[in-house]
């Protein structure tokens, strides 16, 4: 199973300008050193609360937001990745730069960036604002084709109709405006727009949060069917943990710009190891009044990403924190079966 996307030490900082001369005073560390591998053909879930950086991470991978530092390797064969690792240690910069220019999305510019946009697309959370209210549906879905120059003239219409039928809409819907549709249908139009250029990778940014529960199931079905049919790789970003449980193969939990735990869905939901993940999963309201579960209620609020706490970022609210958590930041460690945790409880202390 090859890695489609390999993210190495990705950082995105937003500068905070202050003072009379508006100089940079501090950084909002939206994404602060993320290492991630997304396997081809999987649905990768990214969960966390607001402000944790999951949406920023998704948009940075798509280069909608410029990364501050780090690398995003797209479709790099494992041999190349190994070579890059070795080169980074030995600091052979010329070969490294060459390889990076070929595979690292963070370095793409101009035409290369344009071509890359065909392969990676995004579906937004709110279909009301993500579709231009003054464009006909057929123009909305056709725009990627025209801009990328993939097809011209008559073929555009054919492709648009083909795409719409894949998401469950018909030719009748071509000549209408987005506000004439329901929320679920609008989201399907957004999906059609994202898939019309035949991308390999799609970021789904909370695609079911703005629709009703009954429509959610339709959309989830659609995502699964399309993934099988078109061989897509998804990153499903959401704060709704119950939905992610149903559709993702692997899930990562983010907190304040870093990944704190990552594992296969069943492993993670059955047995969360990181205290934050435990609190997060215990707070999901279960639609069954007979189940009474022990709830871990966290104290305080999420600290600001401008001044993240020293050491482990979660130590200010962690019920299990001890001394080393204030000082040193824990690394992501594999505790077996692909289950990674970043917590000092699982790191052997160096004696």
């Amino acid at each position, binding site marked *: 199973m090859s890695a489609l996307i390999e993210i190495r030490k990705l950082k995105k900082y937003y500068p905070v300008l202050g003072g009379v001369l508006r100089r940079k005073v501090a950084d909002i560390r939206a994404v602060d050193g993320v290492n991630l591998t997304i396997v081809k053909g999987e649905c990768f879930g990214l969960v966390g609360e607001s402000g944790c950086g999951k949406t920023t991470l998704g948009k940075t991978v798509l280069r909608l937001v410029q990364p501050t530092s780090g690398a995003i390797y797209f479709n790099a064969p494992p041999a190349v990745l190994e070579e890059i690792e070795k080169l980074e240690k030995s600091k052979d910069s010329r070969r490294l730069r060459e390889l990076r220019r070929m595979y690292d999305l963070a370095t793409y510019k101009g035409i290369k960036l344009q071509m890359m946009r065909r392969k990676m697309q995004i579906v937004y959370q709110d279909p009301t604002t*993500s579709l231009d209210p003054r464009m006909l549906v057929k123009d909305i879905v056709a725009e990627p084709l025209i801009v990328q120059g993939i097809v011209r003239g008559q073929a555009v219409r054919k492709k648009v109709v083909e795409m719409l039928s894949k998401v469950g809409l018909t030719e009748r819907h071509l000549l209408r405006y987005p506000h004439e549709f329901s929320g679920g249908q609008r989201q399907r139009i957004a999906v059609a727009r994202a898939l019309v250029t035949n991308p390999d990778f799609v970021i789904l940014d909370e695609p079911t949060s703005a629709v009703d529960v009954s429509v959610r199931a339709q959309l989830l079905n659609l995502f699964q069917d399309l993934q099988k049919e078109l061989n897509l790789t998804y990153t499903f970003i959401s704060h709704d943990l119950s939905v992610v449980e149903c559709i993702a193969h692997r899930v990562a939990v983010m907190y304040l710009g870093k990944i704190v735990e990552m594992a296969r869905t069943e492993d993670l939901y059955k047995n969360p190891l990181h205290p934050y993940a435990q609190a997060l999963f215990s707070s999901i309201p279960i639609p069954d009044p007979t189940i009474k579960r022990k709830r871990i209620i966290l104290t305080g609020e999420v600290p600001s990403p401008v001044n993240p706490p020293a050491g482990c970022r979660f130590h200010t609210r962690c019920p299990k924190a001890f001394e080393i958590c204030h000082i040193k930041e824990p690394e992501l460690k594999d505790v077996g079966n692909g289950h990674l945790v970043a917590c000092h409880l699982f790191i052997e202390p160096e004696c």
Partner: protein
Amino acid sequence: MSIGYRLREFKSGIRPWLNELKFTLKKIRKSPLSMVGTAIIIFFAVIAIFAPILAPPVDSRDPYSIFLDGYGPTPRPPGSEILDSYIRGTGWTTHYFGTEEGQIDIYYGCIWGARTAFSIGVLVVVISLAIGLITGSISGFYGGIIDELLMRFTDIILAFPGLVFAMALVIALPPQWPLDLGVMGIGIAIVVAIGVVGFLLKLPGIWRFLLGLAGVAAFAGLFVWGLGSPPVWVLRLNLNNLDKVLIALALVGWPGYTRVIRGEVLRVRQEDYVEAAKAVGCSDFRIILRHILPNTIYPVIIMASLDIGAIVLTAAALSFLGIGAPVGYADWGQMISFARNWVWAGKENPWQFWYTFTIPGLFIFLFVLGWNLLGDAFRDILDPTLRRR
């Protein structure tokens, strides 16, 4: 693609505009003031369009010059007979609204003045709007230092007093302005060079080199052409004072639009669909043209309609002062300027020459009122928070 499909496509393309129009008309009908405003503007539009029929020109080469019936200084009341035989020959019989000082027919002046008013108002607003749209959308979309520079430049223009600038231009520009294309050639060369350099910075490798070469060649050619221009390449623009006023007002009128558009663009810029367009690979130009502008243009339409009235009023004021329409030109403001000495005509029967200033004044008043009411109506109608009541 069948004709039927094309037709349906066209129909759905304009369907939202039709729906908006229907909604707008319904709302206009509900508000009596908007009805009045619309009626007034339609009235003036009809007058302007049918001017050649309502007031057949005596001198067909220059319909805007009002015919003079003799040279007597005293204005004559409405209903007076036309004395000049030549004019009678063309079909005119009476001065319906009377005459001004110098026997300028008021009726003719008012009818053709409607055309003048429309042309001044619409032209100035269209030019200001165009400049405002371009500067506002670039400023709002790119932000940063481009925004700062453009906004400071806009501030400078805003500081210009419009009337004074108009007066200055009227005096400064000669009646025949020879535009030396040679000089223009250098100007165009500079602009092209800047454009090419900007464009080049976005392209890779070999394209850059080739285009750079082409750009340099173009620049050099234009420059040489500019320097050694033979006298043939000179364009002579005939500007009468009214045109100069027009230019002046257009040049100082755009900052208002710039600011409004900039505000709207800042709001729309962060909407998801703009980012989605970027994710699809749209160029900035395409995003601005096809996504941002159609969504930001409504407030500007309202401003523009209100502005038309204001511009006409300003032009009338300038014509009244003598800087503006040439003597004898059909312009309401100018007609009032001829009434200057006849407003109060002595102790006995002081208002005997009321028609000299009242009638053109009424035309101005109604025209500006109509546009103001219409602008207000547009604002009430197009304001999204009040819309669906």
